[in-house]
């Protein structure tokens, strides 16, 4: 199918990944992709680009990431699929100590244009060795970029940009969103820009991944109760769109931060810290985080779901913040 920049179609987030990969590989012959089962699961890419550019690997995440880093340093633009976020644990050295640090340490001699894909989060109910949101680790590590889109369109556009970026970018796919459909185009979406999903004046709900929908749901309920909630989808966790965060919260004076990852040292902590420093004068109420528990995810769908931040909880917290100004300290 021939598509143009302006064509808008509905595809699932899973399909959006495939489209982004195919379009970018078509554009740039230096892009290649590999992972455990990549060739098996993407026969269309193998057919179009050949087995040299779409590869199955042995079962060894460390060498997959390392091979991506080495290839990136020397002329290729690899995309490595590491499947599930917890498996990144086997590849931390290559991602953090090599890909993230060696550009700086080499005085800029080498760049690492590589993309790492990993699914993350609840939605599958198979437990904590598949479901663990660790995106904050990479936000905390130098030289890396991190995105986690909440829509098919963002996934496609951000993945395309990630592949074009000359730095290592981790692209997290919220597994709970894989089958969600949405409009996509062929345009790349810049990293580092949040998306304001809903305008609002009383409180800003800040989120990313599947909890963006939780916030939109909460915002609708708040509207019914007469409160106007903005919903900001961070999308890009590193770089983080500080300007968009500050603009909305300076307007509303209140913020609720929602994500599935555990609270301590998570992305929500970073957002709250930014607000406490740079939106302090505008804050009318405490900044509250609502997150997944600081516990391993249970291996059962119902138990897993029961522990996620709910629209009810977000609504209640936001309503409480809006209920009245906290007395200003002397």
């Amino acid at each position, binding site marked *: 199918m021939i598509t143009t920049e302006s064509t808008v179609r509905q595809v699932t987030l899973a399909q959006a990944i495939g489209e982004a990969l195919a379009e970018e590989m078509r554009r740039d012959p230096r892009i290649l992709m590999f992972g*455990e*089962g990549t060739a*098996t*699961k993407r026969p269309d890419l193998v057919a179009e680009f050949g087995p040299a550019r779409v590869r*199955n*690997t*042995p*079962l*060894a*995440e*460390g*060498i997959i990431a390392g091979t991506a880093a080495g290839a990136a340093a020397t002329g290729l633009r690899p995309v490595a699929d590491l499947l599930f976020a*917890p*498996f990144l*644990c*086997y590849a931390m050295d290559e991602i953090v100590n090599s890909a993230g640090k060696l550009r700086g340490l080499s005085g800029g001699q080498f760049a690492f244009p590589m993309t790492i894909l990993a699914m993350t989060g609840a939605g*599958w*109910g*198979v*437990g*904590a*060795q*598949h479901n663990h949101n660790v995106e904050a680790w990479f936000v905390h590590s130098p030289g890396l970029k991190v995105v986690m889109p909440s829509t098919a369109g963002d996934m496609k556009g951000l993945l395309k940009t990630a592949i074009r970026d000359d730095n290592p970018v981790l692209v997290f796919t919220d597994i709970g969103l894989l089958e969600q459909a949405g409009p996509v185009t062929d345009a790349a979406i810049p990293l580092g820009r949040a998306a304001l999903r809903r305008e609002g004046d009383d409180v800003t709900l800040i989120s990313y991944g599947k909890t963006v929908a939780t916030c939109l749901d909460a915002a609708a309920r708040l509207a019914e109760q007469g409160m106007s909630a903005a919903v900001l989808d961070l999308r890009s966790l590193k770089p983080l769109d500080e300007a968009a965060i500050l603009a909305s919260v300076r307007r509303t004076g209140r913020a609720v931060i929602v994500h599935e990852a555990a609270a301590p040292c998570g992305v929500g902590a970073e957002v709250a810290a930014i607000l406490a420093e740079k939106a302090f004068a505008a804050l009318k109420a405490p900044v509250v985080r609502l997150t997944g*528990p*600081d*516990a*391993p995810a*249970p*291996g*059962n*769908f*119902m*138990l897993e779901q*029961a*522990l996620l931040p709910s629209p009810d909880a977000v609504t209640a917290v936001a309503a409480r913040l809006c209920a009245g100004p906290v007395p200003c300290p002397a």
Partner: protein
Amino acid sequence: MHLLDLMDALRRMTLIRAYEDTLVTLLSQGRAGGTCTSVGGEASAVGVVSALAPEDLILTNHRSAGHLLARGADPGRLLAEVMGRRDGYCGGFAGSLHVSARELGVVLTSTIVGGELGLCTGVALSQKVLDKPGIVACFFGDGAAAEGRFHESLNLAAVWELPVLYICENNEWQAYVHRRETMLGDGIAARAAAYGVDSASVDGCDVAAVFDAAATAADAVRSTGRPFLLETRGYRLRGHLEPDDQAYVDAAELARWRGQDPLDVLRRRLEEAGLAPAELDAVTREAEARMEAAVAFADASPLPDPARLLDTVYA
């Protein structure tokens, strides 16, 4: 060395198959989550586990139901665990991919491929330092053998003289990748020599052969205190993770291995030994009945309070 009771082996293998079939049915009805079945691996599971002593400890991987049932796990409690119920072995929090059962000596089901290889050395170190009698059986796949932890684990076990019986269940598949795509050479056992570890390879479809090889290997570990690598050669007869249409599997290869279905191999042998088909069919019916009761048990077990998990994270 005790002898394998082939009818008992058939009972265990049939129960494993019935368990996995039941799980697949429950899955298709939306009553259980995705699972990696051990179909095709029954002879390896029962052969090896039957060669272990009660005091031996087990670590295994995502395809652990066979090992657990071979070890005597109650299918009702196992199913309850997979379905997230309070009466499961882990109180419902592990699901199918992380079942452990202290009372059975099953320390770990690791879903991180290689996790079992990473921890088994420590379990064996406890046995050795605390002078406990059992050896440690560590089950892993041909795919896991490509992870660096395989290398590190065998090397450390060799150098520290740890009583680990490594069992590589080579079923020719690593999720959606054929083993041939991931290594040169024809098996994992040959890699043990690099570490100074003895090894053997056995037909993983023949429970008697597996039992003999495992008993010999376990004896070696017990008497020398040193590790041993046993490779059981079989085939993953169902898909990687249910549901899986196996469209990527070479049909001829699959058909060839279906002809080696460990249950059929054993049945044929028992028939040749003179057992009546009716006697063998009774085993199947018995397993089915046990599974029916197991489903009823699991169904009746309540979901745990999700919040209870939070109290369990820290000791």
